[in-house]
C-alpha cells in the first residue's frame, strides 16, 4: 500500500498553527509522542480538493531550527528527515502571523532555505487589518519565491485556497526535490532577521492612527491595581463555576447511573454477576463519571485562558511572586493547568527552558489541587462538615474547600522554596516570553480541546478506574464472611487493609480508609468509588441500609478528626499512577518520581497526623 504523503505544519509559537491544524483536519486527529523524547506528535488526516489523502503533522512551534530544547530538536529533525519514526515531509506548510511578519519571516526564510516544497499560510490577516496593517500577499510570494495564501484559521477562511495550493505543489515538484534531500542553509540568525525585516517593510503598509487592541486591553489587564484584581476575579469565577454550573449535569448523571443500577437489579437474578455489575461496576464507575462536568468546566476555563492569550499575562504578573520561591512566571502556566490535572500540567513544563526550574515545577505540580481530588473533597466535606453559614453568603463547607485549595498552593510554593535551595539548587535564568495578541478563540477549537479531554477521562474511567473497582470488589467480596462477621474485614482486601491500618491508625484512619488507599493509588477519585463499593458490600449484609447515600453513612461512621485528617492526606499524598508515570517520562528515569513520591508521602503522613491529633485535642 502506498501511504498518504506527509505534510508538516511548521511555524513560530502563537502563529495560529493549532487552529489551522484543526481547520484542515477537523476532528480526525491522533495525539501521540515521538519515541524517546517528550515531544507530542499531533497528526491528522485531510483530503486535497481532488480527493487525495494527506497525513498532516503539527510540529511544535519554535522560533528557529537551532536546537536548544527538545521541541526544537524534533522540529529540526523532522524537516531534515532525521527524526526516527517519521518520514521526510513531502511538503511544508509554513504558518506566519500577518501582524508579526518581522519575526515570523525569519523562521520562514530558514525553512524555505531547506529546499522542500513549501506553501506559506499568511495567517491572522483579520487581526492585521484590525491593527491597520495591509500586507501585499502577491508581493510577499514574489519575495519569498513560494505561494502565499492569506488565511484566518480560527474562522476557517482561506483553508480551501491553501489546500488547492498544496495540491499543486504535491503534483509539481513532490518527488523530484526529495531525492536531493534538504540541507540547512547555514545563515546567521541575525542576517536572516535583517532580511526578514526588509521583506516585511516592503510588503506591509501601515495605516497610521489605528490603535492596537492588545495594547488597549493590556492597559487594564496589566494595570498595577486592576490587573491583579482582574486575575483574582477570573480565578474566583473559574472555581465558582466548577461548583455552580456542574450541579445540574452531575445530578443528571447520578440519576442515570441509579436507573441503570435498578434496571440491572430487576433484569438479572440475584448472584455473583448481579452483585459484580451493580456494586462493583455501576456504583463504582458512576461515582467517578459524575465528576466529568466539573473536570470539563475547569478545562474549559484553562483552554479559554490559553487561547485568548491571557495566560501569558497571568504569568507576567505572577513572575515576581514565583521568583520569590526561585521559579519564574513560566511556572505559573503549568501550575494553573495542574488545577485541572497534573498530567497536562507536567507536560506543559516543556516550555520552561531552564532544566532546574522545570524539574522543580514538575516536583511541586502534584501539590496543586487537581480536579480528581474534587470528588474526594466534595464527598467528605458534604458528609462531615456541617452546612453552616459562617458569614452571610459564605458557608462553612465552601470555606473548608477553599482552605484546601489554598493549602495546596502554599504547600507547592513552600516545597519550591525548599527544593530550590537543596535538591534543585542552581542559578536562575530569568524570564523571557513573547506576549501574544489577544484573540477571540473559535468555539470549535475550544470544543475540540474539551472533547479530547472528555475522551481521555472516559477512557480512564473505562479502564484503570473500572479495573481497580472490579479487582477491589472481588477482593472485598471473597471469601464470603460467616454470619456475625463484617465482610470488609473477613475478605482478602480486609486482611490487606488490616495490615495497612497498623501504619495509618496513628493518623486517625479507620479500616475502610485503609481499604480505599491502595486502589486510590491508581487514581485519586477511585477513593470515592472504593469507599462506595466497600460500604455497598457491607450494606449488603444489612438490607435497610442499602438505600442510604454514601455521604450519610460516612457522616455516621467517621469522627470529624478522621475526616479532616483524610482531607489533609489528599492535599499532599501522591496518589495517582498517571502522574508518577508522566514524571518518569518527563525526567527520563525513576530517580525523580521516586523522590517525588517519597517526599509527598512524608508530607501527607505528617500533615494528616498533625491534623488528627490537633483536632482530637481541640475536642472537635
Amino acid at each position, binding site marked *: 500500500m502506498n501511504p498518504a504523503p506527509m505534510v508538516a505544519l511548521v511555524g513560530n509559537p502563537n502563529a495560529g498553527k493549532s487552529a489551522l491544524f484543526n481547520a484542515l483536519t477537523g476532528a480526525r486527529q491522533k495525539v501521540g509522542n515521538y519515541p524517546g523524547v517528550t515531544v507530542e506528535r499531533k497528526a491528522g488526516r485531510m483530503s486535497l480538493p481532488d480527493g487525495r489523502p494527506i497525513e498532516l503533522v503539527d510540529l511544535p512551534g519554535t522560533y*528557529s531550527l537551532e536546537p536548544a530544547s527538545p521541541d526544537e530538536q524534533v522540529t529540526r529533525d523532522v524537516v531534515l528527515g532525521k527524526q526516527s519514526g517519521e518520514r521526510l515531509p513531502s511538503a511544508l506548510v509554513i504558518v506566519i502571523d500577518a501582524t508579526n511578519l*518581522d*519575526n515570523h519571516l525569519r523562521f520562514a526564510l530558514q525553512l524555505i532555505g531547506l529546499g522542500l516544497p513549501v506553501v506559506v499560510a499568511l495567517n491572522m490577516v483579520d487581526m492585521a487589518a484590525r491593527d491597520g496593517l495591509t500586507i501585499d500577499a502577491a508581493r510577499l510570494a514574489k519575495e519569498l519565491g513560494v505561494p502565499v495564501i492569506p488565511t484566518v484559521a480560527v474562522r476557517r477562511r482561506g483553508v480551501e485556497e491553501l489546500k488547492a495550493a498544496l495540491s499543486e505543489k504535491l503534483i509539481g515538484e513532490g518527488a523530484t526535490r526529495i531525492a536531493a534531500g534538504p540541507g540547512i542553509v547555514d545563515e546567521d540568525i541575525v542576517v536572516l532577521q535583517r532580511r526578514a525585516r526588509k521583506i516585511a517593510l516592503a510588503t506591509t503598509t501601515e495605516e497610521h492612527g489605528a490603535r492596537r487592541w*492588545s495594547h488597549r486591553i*493590556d492597559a487594564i489587564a*496589566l494595570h498595577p491595581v486592576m490587573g491583579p484584581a482582574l486575575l483574582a476575579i477570573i480565578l474566583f469565577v473559574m472555581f465558582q463555576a466548577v461548583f455552580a454550573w456542574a450541579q445540574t449535569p452531575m445530578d443528571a448523571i447520578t440519576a442515570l447511573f441509579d436507573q441503570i443500577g435498578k434496571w440491572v437489579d430487576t433484569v438479572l437474578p440475584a448472584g455473583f454477576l448481579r452483585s459484580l455489575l451493580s456494586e462493583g461496576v455501576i456504583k463504582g464507575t458512576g461515582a467517578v463519571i459524575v465528576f466529568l462536568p466539573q473536570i470539563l468546566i475547569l478545562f474549559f476555563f484553562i483552554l479559554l485562558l490559553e487561547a485568548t492569550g491571557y495566560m501569558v499575562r497571568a504569568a507576567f*504578573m505572577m*513572575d515576581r511572586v514565583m521568583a520569590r520561591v526561585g521559579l519564574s512566571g513560566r511556572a505559573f502556566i503549568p501550575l494553573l493547568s495542574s488545577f485541572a490535572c497534573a498530567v497536562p500540567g507536567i507536560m506543559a513544563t516543556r516550555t520552561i527552558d531552564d532544566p532546574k526550574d522545570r524539574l522543580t515545577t514538575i516536583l511541586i505540580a502534584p501539590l496543586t489541587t487537581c480536579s480528581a481530588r474534587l470528588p474526594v473533597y466534595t464527598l467528605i466535606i458534604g458528609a462531615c462538615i456541617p452546612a453552616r453559614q459562617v458569614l452571610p453568603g459564605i458557608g462553612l463547607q465552601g470555606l473548608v474547600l477553599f482552605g484546601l485549595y489554598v493549602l495546596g498552593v502554599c504547600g507547592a510554593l513552600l516545597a519550591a522554596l525548599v527544593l530550590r535551595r537543596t535538591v534543585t539548587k542552581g542559578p536562575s535564568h530569568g*524570564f523571557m516570553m513573547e*506576549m501574544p495578541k489577544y484573540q477571540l478563540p473559535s468555539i470549535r477549537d475550544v470544543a475540540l480541546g474539551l472533547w479530547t479531554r472528555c475522551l481521555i477521562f472516559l477512557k480512564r474511567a473505562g479502564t484503570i478506574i473500572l479495573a481497580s473497582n472490579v479487582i477491589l470488589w472481588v477482593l472485598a467480596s471473597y471469601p464470603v464472611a460467616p454470619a456475625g462477621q463484617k465482610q470488609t474485614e473477613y475478605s482478602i482486601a480486609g486482611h490487606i487493609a488490616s495490615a495497612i491500618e497498623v501504619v495509618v491508625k496513628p493518623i486517625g484512619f479507620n479500616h475502610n480508609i485503609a481499604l480505599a488507599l491502595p486502589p486510590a493509588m491508581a487514581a485519586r477519585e477511585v477513593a470515592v468509588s472504593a469507599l462506595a463499593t466497600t460500604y455497598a458490600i457491607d450494606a449488603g449484609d444489612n438490607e435497610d441500609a442499602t438505600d442510604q447515600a454514601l455521604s450519610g453513612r460516612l457522616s455516621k461512621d467517621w469522627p470529624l478528626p478522621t475526616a479532616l485528617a483524610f482531607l489533609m492526606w489528599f492535599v499532599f499524598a501522591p496518589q495517582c499512577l498517571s502522574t508518577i508515570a508522566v514524571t518518569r517520562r518527563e525526567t527520563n528515569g525513576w530517580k525523580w518520581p521516586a523522590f517525588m513520591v517519597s517526599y509527598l508521602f512524608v508530607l501527607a503522613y505528617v500533615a494528616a497526623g498533625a491534623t488528627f491529633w490537633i483536632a482530637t485535642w481541640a475536642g472537635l
Partner: protein
Amino acid sequence: MRLDQLPLNRPAKVSAIAWDEMAQTTAKRLRELGFDEGVTVEAVHVAPFGKDPIACRVGRMTVALRRAQAQQISVEAIAA
C-alpha cells in the same frame, strides 16, 4: 541609558547588547525574540508586583523580560 531605565511609552533605539555577559541560551532567546542592535524598542508595561518584569515592544511583538536582562541592553532615545 539602559532599557530598564527607559520611561514607559518612549520609543528608543537599541545601541548595544552585552551578548558576552549573558548565558548562551539567554542570548539565543533574545535574538529570536527580535532583539538586535539598531531595532526600535519601547517599554509598554511593568508588572504590578515590584515593577518587574517589564513588557517591551520590539518590532511588532511584545516581549516580557526581567529587569536583570533589560540592564544588559543599552538604548538611545529617539529624538522626537
